[in-house]
């Protein structure tokens, strides 16, 4: 459970980083879209404006050409006047298109309105001219040029030409203003684009920095977690060791390093009902004289030396227990037969009774023992087993010691 939690807490920064990247991507996509939309709008508006105004200008030039044809008496004047009427219709259409365009500056509108008023007046003048041209004479004939006294110069120079030139000037001025406005819009758009691109860059940079910090934090958290796990493992190992030690101390004699009485209990209890085995106990005769003579420390050292020797000599044929002060119990391995056990106990007695050098002093004590060829079900528990062995060993000591008794089953 703890491991799952730790995994989850480690992956949280990465999830957050992924979300942050997605947010950056969305923001940048939005900004790019905004730049594109703005550019498209300006481009469309410019295209429509210039298209409308150029149509007006070109149609006006055609009208001017037709008027000149009439005044100069070149070609069919009636046809030229009809053409001019159609051209003005086209100009009106272009004006309608122009007026529908949004975002036109006030300056452009003002200049366009001037141009429009002049163009419409120009149209009215031409309509008046057309009507006068089509007047009928006394005999019902179309007066045409005669309606103007045969000389149209004054009409052209005084009524029409000034309108032509001022209309052209105002229309050209409108084109210039629209061009300037377009330039300003493009510049403003470019500025906006740069601002948005800078924002994109900043968002990306900030995102990168944030991700960098997140990654560092994640790495740090991971290291801290590993450190914690390591510490926990160490604590766990120490705990296990302590437990082992405590456990060992419970079943071990501290002085001799041999298993104790409780260990014997653990090892043998299960076998009492079902196994047959050989077991023996040995005890130094009159060990108390050593303590009395040389002190307890010496006695302890002596026991430790004897125990070490016994482990060396018999550790491979029996499990050796130091069940009380100087009493050792030998639980022979399964493969050791009764006769072999009898031989080994002789050797044990010989070893234990041999002299030992302790703290530069040679010390030798006899020992007594008891051996028991145990049969399944002989004893109910280890305690009764040891009672049997101790009774047999005490009997040997009572009989002068330095001998081995065999526990006899009754």
């Amino acid at each position, binding site marked *: 459970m703890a491991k799952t939690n730790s995994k989850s807490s480690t992956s949280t920064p990465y999830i957050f980083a992924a979300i942050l990247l997605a947010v950056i991507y969305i923001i940048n996509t939005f900004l790019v879209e905004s730049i594109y939309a703005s550019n498209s709008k300006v481009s469309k508006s410019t295209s429509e404006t210039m298209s409308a105004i150029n149509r007006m200008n070109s149609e006006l030039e055609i009208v001017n050409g037709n008027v000149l044809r009439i005044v100069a008496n070149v070609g069919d004047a009636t046809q030229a006047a009809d053409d001019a009427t159609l051209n003005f219709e086209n100009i009106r259409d272009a004006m309608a298109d122009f007026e529908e365009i949004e975002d036109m500056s006030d*300056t452009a509108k*003002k*200049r366009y*309105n*001037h141009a429009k*008023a*002049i163009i*419409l*007046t120009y149209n009215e003048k031409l309509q008046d001219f057309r009507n006068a041209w089509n007047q009928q004479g006394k005999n019902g004939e179309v007066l045409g040029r005669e309606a103007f*006294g045969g000389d149209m110069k*004054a009409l052209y*120079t*005084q*009524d029409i*030409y*000034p*309108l032509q*030139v*001022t209309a052209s*000037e*105002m229309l050209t*001025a409108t084109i*210039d*203003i629209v061009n*300037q406005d377009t330039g300003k819009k493009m510049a403003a758009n*470019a*500025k906006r684009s*740069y*601002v948005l*691109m*800078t924002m994109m*860059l*900043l968002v990306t*940079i900030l995102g990168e*920095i944030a991700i*960098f910090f997140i990654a*560092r934090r994640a790495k740090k958290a991971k290291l801290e977690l590993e450190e914690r796990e390591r510490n926990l493992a160490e604590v766990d190992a120490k705990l296990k060791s302590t437990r082992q030690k405590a456990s060992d101390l419970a079943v071990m004699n501290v002085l001799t390093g041999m298993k104790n009485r409780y260990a014997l209990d653990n090892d043998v209890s299960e076998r009492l009902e079902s196994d047959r085995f050989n077991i023996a106990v040995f005890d130094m005769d009159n060990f108390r004289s050593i303590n009395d003579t040389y002190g307890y420390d010496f006695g302890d050292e002596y026991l430790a030396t004897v125990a070490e020797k016994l482990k060396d000599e018999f550790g491979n044929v029996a499990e050796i227990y130091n069940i009380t002060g100087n009493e050792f119990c030998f639980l022979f391995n399964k493969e050791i037969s009764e006769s072999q056990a009898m031989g080994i106990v002789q050797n044990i007695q010989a070893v234990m009774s041999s002299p030992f050098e302790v703290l530069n002093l040679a010390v030798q004590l006899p020992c007594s023992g008891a051996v028991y060829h145990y049969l399944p079900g002989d004893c109910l528990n280890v305690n009764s087993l040891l009672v049997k062995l101790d009774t047999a060993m005490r009997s040997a000591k009572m009989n002068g010691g330095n001998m081995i008794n065999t526990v006899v089953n009754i």
Partner: protein
Amino acid sequence: MDKSTMKKLFRSAAVCTLSATMLFAGSCGRPEQKREKIAVITKQDISFWADVESGAKDAGKELGFDIIYNVATSDNDYASQIEFINNAIKDDVDAIVIAPNSSDTELNEAFAKAEAAGIKLININSRANYDGIISCVSSSDLDGGSVAARHSATSVLGADDLRAVFSSSAENKPTLEAVQEYGKGAIAILGHTAQTANDRIKGYKSECIEQILTQMAADGLSVDNGGKQLTEEQKEAMFQPFFIECNRCSTIDASYEEAKKILTGADGKNIRTFYATNTNTTLGVCKAVEELGLSDKVFVVGFNSDEQEINYLRNRVLDGLVVQNPYSIGYVGVSYAKKALDGQRLPKSLDTGVTFVSSDNLNDDYVQLLLHPDTY
């Protein structure tokens, strides 16, 4: 995070931010352009020139120029205009758009200095006698006079009147007395003091004479000249009795006095049309006609579109106005100055035209545009 890592991190962040800022600043910043200056100098402080100023300033605003506007005290005050030109040279203007108060050479020295300083010269309203003038944006004064005559319907006499006028003299030539007696009265002309008045009067008289001749031809009357066509000089001499030319005036008061003198004097008997050639003379004539209670009798035609003139028009004291296009003159004048600075070729002159305004067309869109260009 140790100190050196923090330093590296902040250095990286600073570099990124600086790059972004430089990108932004580099793209947005533009070298500041010095704005060009155009001096606009006009004739006198009346509404006509206020409209010219308005057009010039609109053009300056739209085309990106600073306009330095100056106006002389009267239409013959060239001394002030010389000072304005010299100031414009000192101000390092790029072009001068001027309505010269002299059609002769009084301004030429100042023009020469300006031209030597690389300043482009554009005339508006009238042309100075100086070769360095690149272009002149104006209304044709001859045509202005002609338009005034074409619309002065009462100038045209019927066949009987004309026959009486011509037959009353032994030499079959009209006299002032005959015109006053049989021709419904003469046409009084009050010109202002500037050169433009000459052409306006000339155009007016010429068109009046042509209309009379056309009418005579239509009625089967002819002028005896030994079977030859009349020259312009002969026409003018023959029809001179139809016109009474007053002394030239520059102010409203002087015009009023002069008009009153004519209308009440012996020569002014039966005056049927009064033609004035600029704002001040028109206002002076109107004041006199109104004061003498001759509004119904005298057909008054004037020039320009001062608010007082419009009021006289509404009150029927004034019957018609020849309105120029001062806003367009100012606007196109500055626009031409820009084109000259851009190296474009310009026509020697541009006629912005005139419009005859009467109570019939006073509310037409185009007329309103001419009268109130700022509010249109």
